[in-house]
């Protein structure tokens, strides 16, 4: 591997990950650090209702549009969808008391209202990704009249499924003491995520990279993902504390015990069509954690699609590019 190592080093040193995001877009709303983007269409419209992508708070949303040949958003645009994306920004010390209710009622609701008003609609399609899927479920249950179709992607619902290692660890930690009155460092969270599979995530992937002897394009692909993985925003302390205690420790959503700002989040009130996209090899959100949604929503039009992919592979793998956007577009077009 020695020769490969030198070649790989040279390729990595020359790699220019480039600006995150590849598709043309316009910022259509900003409230504090939260921005709403609308992507420029690149194909003939196939679905008239716009699709709002709600990404997780714990990572940056440009993973949805990493590069031209690895972009879920690009795939959706190619399918003729009208795509919006929320960028939650990087919370700082002034955001430490921002709660989940603030994210839902002020930021998410504000973005939804903006789109509905701009397009003279009563309801839109929503795609929630990972933790953003949980936010989407909560929002949809609280304001079902604003949602036409809901899509959840690698979204945990039952946080106490047996394979959920993160949940097992979180349940014994005094989260209120850990968070204190501050924010939670994104770097610390990254350490936690790496600890889930330390041999694979801190060694094998780099050794494999050396062995693969990547060319410049391969090195740039690697570096873009690497950049994204470690570009982790700090988490607004209050929202993080609520999320871990309510979802990971107490599993309130799955047990129908969740209240946000005095309003019950009852998934049975969710009667719009639901598409649940699951990665069979997802180590962060085990399939069982997502599949539980079926028994919890009130919708009679529920579809679950499982892909033989991991968590990140669901956004950027070659197979995902072929299968995921087309599946979403086909499902939406039928409704």
């Amino acid at each position, binding site marked *: *591997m020695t020769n490969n*190592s030198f070649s*790989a*080093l040279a390729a*990595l*040193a*020359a*790699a*220019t*990950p*480039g600006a995150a995001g590849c598709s043309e877009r316009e910022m259509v709303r900003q409230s504090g650090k939260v921005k709403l983007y609308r992507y420029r269409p690149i194909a003939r419209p196939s679905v008239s209702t716009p699709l709002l992508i709600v990404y997780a708070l714990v990572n940056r949303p440009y993973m949805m549009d990493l590069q031209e040949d690895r972009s879920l958003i690009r795939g959706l645009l190619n399918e003729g969808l009208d795509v919006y994306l929320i960028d939650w920004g990087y919370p700082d010390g002034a955001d*430490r*008391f921002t*709660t989940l*209710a603030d994210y839902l009622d*002020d930021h998410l609701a504000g973005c939804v209202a903006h789109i509905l008003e701009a397009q003279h609609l009563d309801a839109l399609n929503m795609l929630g990704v990972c933790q953003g899927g949980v936010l989407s479920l909560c929002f949809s249950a609280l*304001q079902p009249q604003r949602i036409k179709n809901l899509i959840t992607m690698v979204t945990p619902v039952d946080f106490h499924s047996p394979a959920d*290692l993160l949940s*097992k*660890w979180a*349940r*014994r*930690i*005094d*989260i*209120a*003491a*850990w968070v*204190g*009155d*501050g924010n939670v460092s994104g770097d610390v969270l990254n*350490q*936690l995520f*790496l*600890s*889930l*599979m*330390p*041999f*694979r995530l*801190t*060694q*094998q992937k*780099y*050794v*494999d990279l*050396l*062995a693969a002897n990547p060319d410049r394009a391969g090195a740039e692909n690697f*570096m873009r993902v*690497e*950049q994204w993985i*470690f*570009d982790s925003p700090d988490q607004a302390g*209050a929202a993080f*504390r609520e999320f871990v*205690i309510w979802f990971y420790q107490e599993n309130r959503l799955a047990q129908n015990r969740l209240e*946000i*700002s*005095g*309003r019950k989040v009852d998934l049975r009130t969710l009667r719009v069509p639901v598409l649940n996209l699951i990665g069979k090899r997802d180590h962060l959100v085990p399939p069982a954690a997502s599949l539980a949604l079926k028994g919890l929503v009130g919708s009679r039009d529920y579809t679950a699609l499982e892909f033989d992919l991991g968590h990140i592979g669901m956004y950027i793998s070659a197979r995902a590019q072929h299968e995921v956007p087309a599946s979403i577009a086909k499902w939406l077009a039928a409704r």
Partner: protein
Amino acid sequence: MQPDPWAQWLAFSARFTPGASPSGTAQNASSFAPFADLSEHFNAAARAYFDGAANAPAPAAAAAAQSFGDSLRELFSDIQLPWNLSAGTGGAPPMFAPNSPALGASRESQLRAQRMAEAWRRIEEAQRRLQRFGADAVREAAATFGAGLAAAPPQAPSAEALHKLYGTWIDCAEDAYARAAHGEPFCNALADYVNASSEWRKELQAGIEHSAKLLDLPTRSEINTLTQRLMAVEHELRALREQSRPEAAATPQRAPQRAPQRVPRKKAKP
């Protein structure tokens, strides 16, 4: 090249790799060397195994497999798992014995230092337990790996075969680690580590606040109070705007906002 992700990558790789220097190498590409070294050591051990096992009778092949597993155990014995990064490098060493009497005008500071010392002792104790789980996982993985090799005839030592063997080794290591990580003792050790770290940080913050007040500097608590007041005003303003919208009556409203309260700290589960 954008410097940030690259520098981040180098620092990261230097921190996590067996034998890597904990500091100083992050500024140049030689930080990649540990991964190349790791590959070379793995290849050397694999070639020794192939030499010993090829065309050998079963007992000799089994011995070569076990030797391969042992050398991997050795190679990975000092792996730095993420929770152990700060061991011996960060924080303050205990300055006060936990149970000594606190006397005089600085009594509060002494008590605080004692609590920090006790928290630090618990942090180190939890780190040792976690590191032991890591070492046990590597030992178990080496045994599983060796047994698997002994049961299967060796392939020709091609680059593909070596890479495949490396993948098998990582699978063994992750499986062994996952068995430990899902278990109650590991979860408890991790929780003890995090909870003790929280207590240590809380005491440190209290000490800094105390010093800041003596110097008439703004403290974190004071800034937090102002932030909470500002947020309460923002919420009230938003609620008033919302009420003035004609369609407001049809939209479910959140409960009236008040200044964010500190959440009472919950006891960790035993």
